[in-house]
């Protein structure tokens, strides 16, 4: 079923890529910017910096006082935020159409003229806030650092995805105002940014408004380094065990996968869904409802662009069950899947679930804008939001089995085991 969300593209003279998708169902518009910088661009000793920098984007710019970005947009009926991930940083607000100029003005001011307002006090304050974010979301949470450990287990030490977006306390402490200036100059500019508008606007008017507010920002002459070559699967299992204060034993199995637009990526994602992502997935059926050796099994795929993606399984081991036995059962299922492939029912359910999920993702203007920016910035192809489901449903059972053979072999797993016990680290 081809989707038909309108997608209009335009590039300003300074290189800013603009995507517009009119939707007049409600009198609001979403402004969504993706900047082509994330934790994968960070240098040793400055992990977590892209995210810390994102916080500083709310602390004032040439014509905007600290805190006013939030205050002005919220008073105008805007909902807004920003997030940082491996491959990008995004900034977004959804607001009544009559406040669009205000949003574009505020975004242009900080994306063009942030450094006028950056100072040591702002940096120190937001460094403290980010350190509390790290404690709240990772350090003070059971299993909170498991994904950090999984990235480090599955990806090589010098790889851009080896470290998590939140970074380390030591590196956050080391960040300086000079770093902020250098980072802004290197990465923030119209020719390294996509701006999407979705909502109650026409393409002509939207593009004219964006040009009015962003047209005078100078290009920074950004030249992206070529992405890294595809990483091959691990050639032997890697393992990291943490023993400590967790409520139950939990296993994470990670696998290197093809990059997000590789033809095998979707097949690998469907394989993980069929194996572990559904209630009827064979691992759930066997471990949770059959043997009852696990209380939950989950499967996820994270698509990246820089030489590798990540597939992962997470298994909560039932009380009193040997985690090694559970892991062996998981490996048996991986071997069986690679040999015989998905059943028709598993594949049908994986596709049906993905269709519902994708349509739900596009149901709100703000998420639709985010999807357009994603495909425009990372793949120069925003219209892919309309084609994704067609690509997914074209994947054959043979391709799913082949992807599992190539990428989900037991010998290619990286395991992070969080086990109950007294010691801190074994």
């Amino acid at each position, binding site marked *: 079923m081809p989707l038909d969300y309108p997608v*209009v*593209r*335009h590039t300003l003279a300074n290189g800013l890529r603009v995507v517009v998708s009119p939707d007049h*169902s*409600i*009198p*609001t518009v979403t402004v969504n910017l993706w900047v082509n910088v994330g934790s994968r661009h960070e240098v040793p000793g400055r992990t977590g910096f892209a995210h810390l920098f994102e916080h500083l984007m709310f602390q004032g710019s040439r014509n905007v006082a600290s*805190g006013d970005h*939030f*205050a002005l947009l919220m*008073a*105008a*009926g*805007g*909902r807004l935020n920003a997030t940082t991930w491996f491959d990008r940083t995004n900034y977004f607000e*959804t*607001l*009544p159409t*009559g406040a669009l*100029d*205000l949003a*574009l*003005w505020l975004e*242009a001011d900080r994306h063009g003229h942030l450094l006028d307002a950056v100072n040591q006090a702002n940096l*120190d*304050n*937001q*460094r*403290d*806030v980010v350190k*509390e974010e790290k*404690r*709240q979301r990772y350090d*003070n949470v*059971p299993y909170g650092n498991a994904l950090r450990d999984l990235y480090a287990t599955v990806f090589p030490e010098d790889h851009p995805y080896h470290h998590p977006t939140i970074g380390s306390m030591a590196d956050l402490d080391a960040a300086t105002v000079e770093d902020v200036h250098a980072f802004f100059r290197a990465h923030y500019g119209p020719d390294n940014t996509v701006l999407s508008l979705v909502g109650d606007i026409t393409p*002509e008017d939207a*593009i*004219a408004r964006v040009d009015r507010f962003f047209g*005078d920002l100078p290009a920074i002459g950004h030249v992206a380094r070529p992405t890294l070559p595809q990483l091959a699967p691990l050639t032997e299992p890697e393992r990291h065990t943490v023993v400590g*204060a967790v*409520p*139950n034993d939990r296993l994470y199995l990670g696998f290197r996968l093809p990059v997000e637009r590789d033809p095998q990526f979707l097949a690998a994602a469907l394989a993980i869904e069929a194996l572990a992502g559904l*209630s*009827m997935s064979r691992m759930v*059926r066997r471990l949770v*409802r059959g043997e*009852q050796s696990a*209380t*939950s099994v989950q499967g996820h795929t994270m698509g990246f662009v820089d030489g590798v993606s990540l597939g992962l399984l997470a298994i*909560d081991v039932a009380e009193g069950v040997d985690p090694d036995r559970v892991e062996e059962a998981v490996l048996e299922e991986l071997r069986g899947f690679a040999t015989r492939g998905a059943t028709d*029912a598993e594949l049908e*359910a994986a596709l*049906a*679930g993905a*269709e*519902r999920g994708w*349509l*739900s993702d596009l*149901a*709100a203007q703000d998420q639709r804008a985010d999807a357009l920016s994603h495909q425009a910035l990372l793949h120069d192809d925003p219209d892919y939001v309309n084609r994704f489901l067609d690509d997914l449903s074209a994947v054959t059972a043979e391709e799913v089995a082949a992807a599992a053979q190539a990428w989900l072999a037991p010998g290619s797993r990286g395991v992070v085991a969080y086990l109950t016990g007294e010691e801190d680290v074994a």
Partner: protein
Amino acid sequence: MTSAAQHDGAEAPGTAGETRPPVTPPGRWTFPEPATSRLANGLSVLAYDIPGQYVLSVRVVVPLSTRAEPRDREGVATLMARLLDEGTEAHSTDEFTELLERRGIDFGAGLSEAGLTVHVEVPKRNLGAALDLVHEALATPSFPDREVGRLVRTRLAEIEQERASAPHRAMREFAATYFDPAERASRPTAGTVETVSGLTRADVVAFHATHVAPNASTVVIAGDLAGVDVAAAVADSLGGWAPGPVPVAEPSRSAARAAADARRIVLVDRPGSVQSEMIVGCAGPDRHVDPTWSAYSVVSFVVGGSPNARVDAVLREDKGYTYGMRSAFRPRRAGGLFLTTGSVRTEVTVEALDLLLGILADARDGFTAVECTNGVDFLRNTAPSRYATADAVADEAAGLVLDGLPSTFTTSNLDAMATLTPEALTAAYDRFVDGRWTVIVVGDAGAYADRVRALGRGPVSVVAN
């Protein structure tokens, strides 16, 4: 495709500059009105047509009170809810799961203090199949013995996971401290180790037979309903749900009472914790309050609803003590709470708590006109996007049903907001906030217990995690 930009009427690049553009205020907006009907078995039907929403959201609300659970069987209602899609008289667990997932149907069921809610997301073309399966799950669940035992063990594991999670642990301690111990609300909705461990299939079957019936229940269907005969689809499915033998009583609208010694400080000790998770709370209203719930929505925003709100302006943006704390009035079906929640690093626990209590006390002196206007404008003007999806509309509609409010409530509440004054906000706040709090801190109590006592903010006790 790339369009040629038209610049007619627009200023030339470079003229945006220093001048902040004006904002044109939006017009009045209203929450969608449902088409309503009622089936012979008593089930009410609310259909919200939202063009362009191709994943439909279905909620079935069955009013029941967790107060109806036997004291030594608490959690049986939640267990019953979690078992609804684990097999029916016609289909085994695996078969039922396949029937749902091969059609892309996401099925969930949960309990709140006011009722059972089944929630379903389904691509439009499979609505009929989804309603058939919802009917099957509600009317003829088989509660297989094996799955009952499994979900009891899963709940026991979940209790340990919640104990390990600081926000969950704090909320459990808050309920136990704030509510009178005779109240069901003082204990976890999904039950404790003592009450869940012994639950059997017979308990679940009995609870379901007594409390789950269409008589006083409601189905909400939201999404793009063009070309969908909702009345026929519901009649052909849930229309076959047999009414209960006796009219099912509406849960009462009496608020759970606070404990006589609710106003105190409890430190839950987790040695080595790098943060302190806090809850500061007192009584609040439910959404039937007169005058008017709209004031409490705005006060929540002004006190603790954004990085610029009173709490985070100090604790986050000035002091850097927290990633963010939130204050909000949280209505229950009857009565409610006013809670401020969040975490700070261990070293500043006492300073943060003292500052927070001061900020909450200062708010009793009044709110400014700017705060009032900004809060009202934020809540009114974000409404169209907050309620834009089928999922959001269905959630709001189901919440109104659970609380016994009419489907016009959301719009009338937004309209009432437009007339609020700073004095009305202050009066609303002062009506419930008297400066005497139940305070829970989950963290390394040894690092700050003595200094918390020295604050003189009330009796302090320390309990184990």
